[in-house]
Each structure stands twice: as structure tokens, then as C-alpha cells.
């Protein structure tokens, strides 16, 4: 569909790339308003305690302090998920983790606000903490959310059990059954920009809130709700955002308190989190304990699976209900599996709350399953790639749990990644302590069913062609660095045959742009892209008709900024001329497009979480070196082949794949939210929370595979999350190839790897002793 000189598929710079390189970009903390005050929090030093009293008098008495808020001022509970409204802007009655927000101050500058916050006296009655999965499942432990109490209740937020086919019969068919336990750590996003909000009250009672959010729409709804305002009186604007990776999907206390303090003082309030506070705001990966049992026939057919997962989710629900479903729903994909079941538990603990992080809910089961496949392949003497290919889902099929599968280029991904990496020649032959590993995966392109049930579109785009030849695109999407502004421009420009730089994108302003559900679950390209395409199609039709009349023939094309008849290309109109012609005929050229996912019938009514209009597929190979004396793992190279449907801009798609692999490498090697036995975060800094530097980052070789999805805009699917799923298990499988140890527990820190190697040697010694 795309033409040779079309913006669709063109490499290189983003339409909005330059300001970020010259320093002109405006992130929220770069905005200043006259008379602006600054916010600061008083936070809980206890993991679990009842608040007996709060004395704010000393804080209020400090010169320069304008207002102090406590939980009593903002009593309305909220949460992104309708069934889990368990958060408050500031603690009400109880604090649930070390770092929980208790009070908020607005003062003339940050120093004063912080000093005042430290002067607030809070009297606590400490309660027993719930720190482990065992604690959370134990009915004798106190409940974090005691308003939920019923007899026998535990701190389980959500248990999900689903069963497909006949697992018992499936296991009976198997020649080999393996069962293992797996542990995946909690990890956090560490976007380089911390959360920042700036609220401005208006004399007419309205409010504008600028924030580093990745979902302006939910923030809009929840700010209105918590402040008791009409939604039409609240305007949320997302300026440039220093990335999110899922970590800026929830409404945060600093946003709500900036708004409330601005209303209370009548002055603009900026509220910024420092780096340590971002570790408390968290919403990252759930630390998850898993058991997986799988059966396979000797010729490599997977016959059955039984999966259990327990996640210690921290103090609040966040998106945790969804996490509990994702754990199971995406377990088999990208493989065919007829007989299987899963049971998952998402628990509350007295830690910073977990939530959605890149590859939400799918990373942990993928880790377990991809390791498990290599174990099974080993057991039946089959090559790991062959086992995967044998069970791979086919295009235009339905999975046993009712997911509609359309475009699939997984086989191509596997072939390409094997060829590029030399996997088949290298596996088992790289010599001691060097190894190679493979993993594959699939991920969603947005959710069929919105979080808040409705029949309204999930994305909408408005475009307007100006007589100058410029096309403006208004969209509620949130570009947080992934390049969605460029994507929208490429789609519209691609349809109209103009350079994408002739488009202007105005995004993420709930006062101006049509609603879009935001940047999560890899939905933006598919959903907003289709909405943009729909708007552009209408403009295209009107312009084409006007041009056909003028040029005297129907074979009109729009290409390279010109509008002409294919049969007479020498008589071309400039795009701007064609706009003017169309405007004369049609009136002002404004069009809206929207996207509502197709109604896909599902045999399983309960399956409302997980189905997507399309799925992306990934295959990755990792090559590692293990130092058997220290346990250090060096990931030298990762080859990543990703079926993104269609690369609207290959440079940006590569960047997304590279970013995913990078984040996976961090989770594989060292990243871990670790807490003291009192629930205190052990390493809330970039110095001690070990995200990879350039030296730990492997060479990443990306291979883009295009399956041209029938329903995706120009065939596009997603690239922002899916590629992360394969990285950690590919590394784990490579470690096995290198030194014969299965790393069932991530991250693969030197300490863990060395212990595994020592265990291997002990067992070998025992075996040779027994044998002798």
C-alpha cells in the first residue's frame, strides 16, 4: 500500500525530534507560572500503621507555607480499575508502606515545602506487616485494606482460575512431564524524568493540570472525581514526558495534591517527585513466584500445562486485577495448547505498589515457559527451535482460550534470528562458559475491552487541512518518547502523499484533543493509527474528488506532495492547490476518525481481559559468557527479530526493540526491588538500583519482520513492549548452554549464578562418587 517515496516506511528523524536535541523541548518541570508554589510530601516511615493523629501546626506556622493537606481533605477513594478503588491521594486512617504519602504542603519554594513537611507530627500505632506471599495468604495476618474484611479473608486482591480442554487427559498423553518452580523479581521503570505535575487554578473555578502522565484521560477522570469537580472544568495537558514504560499510567498523589493545593491556595502549584520518591511511587513489575508443569510427547507436541502464580503486589491494587488475568491469558501464546489451566493470585503486601511495567503480566509467565520449553526439548532430545516451531500458532486461527489470531510471522522471525545468530551451529559448541539461547513470544496490540466498560470509541483523531497545505492532527494519545506523534503524521501523510513534516501533531490535551485511552498495552499504533487513517481516508476522498473534477479524469493519485492523474503526471497540482480546490467545493476540511476494535465473539464470556485485535511476535537469540569463578554473566549480543506488522518508521521500530531488549537485560542481570525485613526499600537510587549502563548492554541486532496485518494501519501492529518478553528467557537459556545450570530465579546476579554453578559441581561430584 505504501509507495516508494511515502513517509510510511521511511527511516530517520521524528517530526518532533529536534526540540529534544537542542534543549528546546518543554517537560513539565521546565514550565513556570507566575506566583507558582511548590509541593512536598510527608511520608510514612512505617510499613503498616494506624494514624492516630496528625499535627500540622508547626508546618503551617513556618513562614512561606501556604497550605497543608491531609487525608481528611481528599477522602474520595480512587483506582484505575473500577473494581479496585482502594487508593487515596493521602493516607486515610492507615499507612500501608514506607513512603506512603501522609500529608502535602504548598510553600513558596521547594526548600520551605520540604522543611515544613518534615515539621508535621504524625502519631502512629504500628501494625504487624505483611511482607511475603505466605503472609498475604495467611488469614491470621492483618488485612491491609480492612474495610474489605469478611471472615477468613486474606490479603489476596484477586484470584483467577481458568481451565481449557482436559489437562488431565493432556498430561496422560505426554511422554515427558516436567514441573519446576520459578521466581521472578520485582523491578521498576526508572524513567529518567521523575513524576512532575503543575496545576493552575482559574478564577472561574476551572483547573489546568500539566503532568508527566502517559494516560491523560484516566488522570482527567480521576482528578475530577477526587477533587469533586465536573470533568468539563478540568483540563489535563501532557507536555514532553521523559518516558514511562508503564510507570506513569496511574494517577499519582503528586498530581492530585498539586491540583488540590492549587485550588486551596488559588495559586499555581508545582509538585515534583525526587528520584527516591519515584521508587516509592513504583507501580513496577510484580515479584512473582510460579510453578509450571508441562507435558510433551517424544515427537515434540506440547500436550498440557498447569501454571500457578503468586504475586506480591504491594500496598494498592493499581492494575493488579488485570495482572492476575494476564499471567494466565498470555501463557500459551505463541504456541498451540489445547489442554491447560492456570491459577493466579495477586496479593497485597506492605511494600510500594506494583502495577504495569513494559510487557505487563506477560514477562513472568514467559520467563517460566520459555525456560521450561528448553528443559523439555532437552529431555526429548529435540532442538529448542524445532520444539517451538512445531507448536507455533498458525495465522487466522483461534486459541483454546478464545483469542483470535490473525497475522503471524513467528516462523519467519525464528528463521531469521537463527540464521543471523548462527544458533544452530553454535548451540552446545561454543566451548565452556559461553552459550547461546533462544526464546520466542507474543504480545497484544491493545485490549479489545476497555478498562471502563463502554461502547464508545477507544481512540479518536481529528485532522484539518489548511489551505497552506499543512495538515494538523489532533489526538489524545500520549507520546512519551515512543514516537506516536511521528506515527500519526506518517499515517496521515502516507495517505495524502505529502511529507510527514507538513503535518503538525497536537496531542494529549484533554481540553482540545479527542479522547484516547492512552499509552499502555501497546495500543497506540493499532488504535490511534487506525483512527488517524480513517480521518485521512475521508480527507483523501474529498480532495481526490475535487482534483478529479479539475483534472478531468478519475485516475487521480496523491504522491510526493503532488496531485495528478496517473495518465497525465505532467499536469500536477500542488497539494496546497488541491486542498484549496477541495475547500471550495466542500467547505473547511476537517474530519474525524475513530477506532473501535471489532466485536470478536469469544466462546468464553469471562475472557474480557487479554483479547486483542492483533498480536505481535518475537524471536530472540542471546549469546552470553559466564565467569564461572565470580558468577558474572556478560550478555555479548542479542539478535531480535520482531513481527511488528509493518514498520511505519523502521528507525523508530528498531529503537523500540532495542529499548525492550535493554530493559530485559536489566531485569535479567541485576534489577531488583529489594526491601529490608521492615519493608524499607534497600536501594532507592540510580546508584544502587542497578539499571544497565552502556557497558552491560549487549550489541543488539534488530531484524524487522513484516506480516502486514489486515486490520492494522498500513499493516502495523506493535513494537513497544512485545520484544521485551523474549529477552530474559533467551539469556537464561544461553546460561544453560554456557554452563549447564537452569536459572529458575531471576535476576541472574553473580551471587545466584555462582551458587547454581556450585550446586552443579556438588551434584556432579556426588554423581561421580555414587558412580564410582
Amino acid at each position, binding site marked *: 500500500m505504501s509507495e516508494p517515496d511515502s513517509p510510511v516506511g521511511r527511516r530517520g528523524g521524528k517530526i518532533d525530534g529536534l526540540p529534544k536535541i537542542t534543549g528546546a523541548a518543554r517537560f513539565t518541570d521546565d514550565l513556570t507560572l507566575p506566583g507558582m508554589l511548590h509541593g512536598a510530601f510527608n*511520608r510514612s*516511615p*512505617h510499613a503498616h500503621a494506624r494514624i492516630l493523629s496528625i499535627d500540622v501546626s508547626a508546618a503551617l506556622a513556618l513562614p512561606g507555607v501556604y497550605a497543608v493537606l491531609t487525608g481528611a481533605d481528599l477522602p474520595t477513594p480512587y483506582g484505575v480499575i473500577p473494581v479496585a478503588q482502594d487508593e487515596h491521594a493521602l493516607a486515610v486512617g492507615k499507612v500501608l508502606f*514506607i513512603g506512603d504519602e501522609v500529608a502535602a504542603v504548598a510553600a513558596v519554594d*521547594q*526548600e520551605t515545602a*520540604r522543611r515544613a513537611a*518534615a515539621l508535621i507530627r504524625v502519631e502512629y500505632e504500628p501494625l504487624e506487616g505483611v511482607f511475603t506471599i505466605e503472609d498475604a495468604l495467611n488469614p491470621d495476618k492483618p488485612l491491609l485494606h480492612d474495610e474489605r474484611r469478611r471472615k477468613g479473608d486474606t490479603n489476596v486482591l484477586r484470584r483467577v482460575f481458568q481451565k481449557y480442554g482436559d489437562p488431565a487427559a493432556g498430561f496422560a498423553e505426554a511422554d515427558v512431564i516436567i514441573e519446576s518452580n520459578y521466581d521472578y523479581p520485582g523491578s521498576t521503570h526508572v524513567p529518567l524524568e521523575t513524576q512532575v505535575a503543575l496545576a493552575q487554578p482559574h478564577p472561574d473555578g476551572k483547573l489546568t493540570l500539566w503532568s508527566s502522565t502517559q494516560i491523560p484521560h484516566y488522570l482527567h477522570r480521576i482528578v475530577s472525581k477526587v477533587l469533586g469537580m465536573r470533568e468539563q472544568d478540568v483540563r489535563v495537558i501532557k507536555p514532553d514526558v521523559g518516558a514511562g514504560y508503564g510507570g506513569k499510567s496511574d494517577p499519582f498523589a503528586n498530581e492530585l495534591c498539586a491540583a488540590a493545593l492549587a485550588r486551596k491556595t488559588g495559586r499555581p502549584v508545582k509538585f*515534583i517527585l*525526587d528520584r*527516591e520518591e519515584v521508587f516509592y511511587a513504583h507501580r513496577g513489575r510484580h515479584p512473582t513466584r510460579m510453578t509450571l508443569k508441562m507435558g510433551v510427547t517424544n515427537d515434540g507436541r506440547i500436550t498440557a500445562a498447569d501454571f500457578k502464580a503468586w504475586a506480591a503486589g504491594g500496598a494498592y491494587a493499581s492494575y493488579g486485577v488485570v495482572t492476575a488475568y494476564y499471567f494466565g491469558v498470555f501463557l500459551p501464546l505463541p504456541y498451540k495448547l489445547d489442554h491447560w489451566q492456570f491459577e493466579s493470585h495477586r496479593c497485597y503486601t506492605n511494600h510500594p505498589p506494583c502495577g504495569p511495567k513494559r510487557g505487563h503480566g506477560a514477562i513472568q509467565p514467559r520467563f517460566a515457559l520459555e525456560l521450561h520449553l528448553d528443559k523439555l526439548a532437552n529431555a526429548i532430545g529435540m532442538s529448542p527451535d524445532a520444539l517451538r516451531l512445531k507448536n507455533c500458532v498458525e495465522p487466522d486461527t483461534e486459541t483454546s482460550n478464545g483469542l483470535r489470531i490473525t497475522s503471524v510471522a513467528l516462523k519467519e522471525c525464528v528463521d531469521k534470528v537463527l540464521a543471523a545468530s548462527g544458533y544452530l551451529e553454535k548451540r552446545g559448541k561454543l566451548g565452556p562458559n559461553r552459550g547461546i539461547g533462544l526464546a520466542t513470544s507474543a504480545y497484544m496490540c491493545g485490549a479489545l475491552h476497555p478498562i471502563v466498560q463502554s461502547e464508545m470509541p477507544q481512540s479518536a483523531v481529528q485532522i484539518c487541512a489548511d489551505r497552506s497545505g499543512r495538515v494538523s492532527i489532533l489526538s489524545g494519545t500520549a507520546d512519551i518518547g515512543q514516537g506516536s506523534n511521528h506515527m500519526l503524521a506518517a499515517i496521515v501523510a502516507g495517505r495524502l502523499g505529502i511529507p510527514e513534516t507538513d503535518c503538525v501533531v497536537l496531542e494529549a490535551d484533554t481540553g482540545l484533543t479527542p479522547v484516547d485511552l492512552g499509552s499502555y498495552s501497546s495500543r497506540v499504533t493499532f488504535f490511534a493509527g487506525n483512527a488517524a487513517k480513517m480521518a485521512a481516508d475521508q480527507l483523501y476522498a474529498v480532495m481526490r474528488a475535487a482534483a478529479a473534477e479539475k483534472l478531468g479524469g478519475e485516475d487521480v493519485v496523491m504522491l510526493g506532495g503532488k496531485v495528478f492523474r496517473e495518465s497525465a503526471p505532467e499536469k500536477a497540482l500542488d497539494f496546497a492547490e488541491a486542498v484549496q480546490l477541495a475547500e471550495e467545493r466542500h467547505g473547511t476540511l476537517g474530519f474525524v476518525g475513530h477506532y473501535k476494535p471489532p466485536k470478536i465473539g469469544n466462546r468464553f464470556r469471562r475472557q474480557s481481559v487479554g483479547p486483542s485485535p492483533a498480536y505481535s511476535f518475537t524471536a530472540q537469540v542471546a549469546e552470553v559468557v559466564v565467569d564461572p*569463578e*565470580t*558468577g558474572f554473566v556478560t550478555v555479548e549480543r542479542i539478535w531480535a527479530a520482531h513481527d511488528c506488522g509493518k514498520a511505519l518508521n523502521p528507525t523508530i521500530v528498531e529503537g523500540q526493540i532495542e529499548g525492550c531488549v535493554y530493559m530485559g537485560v536489566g531485569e535479567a542481570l*541485576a534489577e531488583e526491588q*529489594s526491601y*529490608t525485613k*521492615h519493608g*524499607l*526499600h*534497600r*536501594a*532507592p537510587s*540510580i*546508584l*544502587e538500583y*542497578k539499571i*544497565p*549502563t*552502556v*557497558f*552491560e548492554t549487549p550489541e543488539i541486532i534488530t531484524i524487522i519482520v513484516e506480516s502486514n496485518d489486515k486490520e492494522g494501519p498500513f499493516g502495523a501492529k506493535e513494537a513497544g513492549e512485545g520484544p521485551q518478553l523474549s529477552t530474559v528467557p533467551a539469556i537464561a537459556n544461553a546460561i544453560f548452554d554456557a554452563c549447564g545450570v537452569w536459572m529458575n530465579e531471576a535476576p541472574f*546476579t*553473580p*551471587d545466584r549464578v*555462582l551458587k547454581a554453578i556450585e550446586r552443579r559441581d556438588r551434584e556432579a561430584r556426588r554423581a561421580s562418587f555414587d558412580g564410582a
Partner: protein
Amino acid sequence: MLPLPTFSVLSPRAVSDAAQMLTDHPQARLIAGGTDLLPSMKYGLFTPPTLIRLGGVSALQEISVTEAGGLRIGAGVTLRAVGRDVRVLSLYPALAAATRTIATSTIQAMGTLGGNLMLDTRCAWYNQSTFWRGALGGCLKCHSAPEGAICHVAPKGKGCYAAHSADTAPGLLLYDAEVELVSTRGARRVAVAALYGDDGRDWIRRAPDELLTAVILPPPPAGRVVHRKLRARGSIDYPLLLTAAAFDPDRGPRVVVSSVGPRPVELGGVAEAWEAGGVEAVAEAAYKQVSPLSTHVWPAPWRKKMVRVEVRRALEAAISGV
């Protein structure tokens, strides 16, 4: 952003002025590159009323050859300048190597050699924000710890075991380097080996009114000195374990281990172990002598195992360089 406490600043131009200011303002702290001091102050670890800036004292920024044929390196020379100096590179390669493993290339361009030798001891329970330490209940090293605060590394003890983390110290110790300390009372020299004490709160044997002016290196030893740093990542990170080994074919090996307690420790019994069983025996002796504590986020038992590995690797490299 994290505010700095309020303080005033003094900007001397000569060593004598700086010494006088230190005498006149006993609560003042010296600031060189600021790469240790300012993060610590942002975390509220201390709140000096006055900072004396050494950046303007040009006499501290010189490297010169001594009469003895060694080098005198001013305390204010940046780590980057030390690491690139051709004389340092040829005579004291382990020092150059150590500077290049510190933090990041940008911090190496800011931080000084003097600041590195004066680097505060570090601990996972201490190098944290005011809020964090408050939630923990503080510890013995905190200047305003509440009554009853304990050491979280050795709860029953009375001492502080915060880890010496200066990368240049172990190598300088094996080069038999000295530092020059200047106050209004005069100048004195102290061997790097004698500069540090055994408690993480009071780890440096420098009088409060003294200024470190230079590191003086004697002519290099006959054999080779090797610096090794164990760290989590290839840049940014402080050491998990520092090892320096020297090998002089006539006098045998010497080994220093650091980042395991408040001072770098030259291991005892190395000559005997070497005689008895070579490199492996020295590594084993090191393993027996050195017990890292939970002063770091990464686990102490693993760091203990690493003592053996790192000492062996350092010594092998020192020997192979002869």
C-alpha cells in the same frame, strides 16, 4: 530537586589562606570536586555552616617530579589528569588504572585525588536520604541518630564498619605513598598505610584543621603493582571489593584488600603463604583473613568468595607483568 542546606562559601587562592580559614572556621568543610561532599549534603548526612573551596588554589593542581625520582601529585589534580599523565602512566600504572575505574568519565573530570583519599566511608545503611535513615531509625554513623540507634551491620557491636571505598588508596599503599598534610601549625607527612583508622565514623587520621596538599610517591618498586576493582556495573559504581597486589621478584608479593571495612588492609602472612604454596595459598590466606560485612547491598557471603578470586587474579597479573 533536592535542596542543599544553607552554608556560606570561602574561596582561598593559596594553601596558607586555606589553612588559616580552616583554623578560623573549625566547623567548615573543604570542597574540592564536590563529587562526594555534595551528594552527601543533599542526603543530609552533614550540614557544615561553611565550605572552603579548593578549586581556586592553583598550587594544589600541579604534578612534579621529586628529587628522589618519584612524583608529587597535588591534592587538587583531577582524577582524569592523574589517569592521563604520562609520568603516572609509566611509573605508577596501577594508580592510573584505579582513577579510570572511579565512577564515570565525567566524575573523573571533576573529582580530585585529594578528595578521593579523603572520601568518606560508605555503607548501604548510611548513604541514604534523611527520610530513609529516619525510617530505619538511624545508625551509629549518623550525626543526629536517635538514642538507642544501632549498627545494622553488626547490631551487637559498638563500632562502625562502613567501607573504605576510595579506589586509589590500595595501590598508593603498595607504592608506599605518603600524603602531605598542612595546617597553620606546619606541614607533616603521613604514609597512606597509616592514614586510616578502624572505625567508620572516625576513619581518617587527619586533624580537623589540616588540609591534604599532595600525594608523594617514592620511585616505583621493582615489580609490578596491579589494581582490581569488583563492581556491579562497568561504570558509575563504587567498589564491592578492591584488591591491589604487588610482586617484586626479590621480595615476593604484597596484597591489599579494601572496601571491606573502614580502611584498606595490607594482608599479613602473605610472604609465608607465598613460600608455602604460591598464588593459591596467598588467595586462600586472604580468604581466611577477610570477612566482608553487609555494608553493601550485594550479599556479603558472595563478596567473601570473591576475595579469593580477586586476590588470585590480581597476584597472577602482578607476577605475569614482571
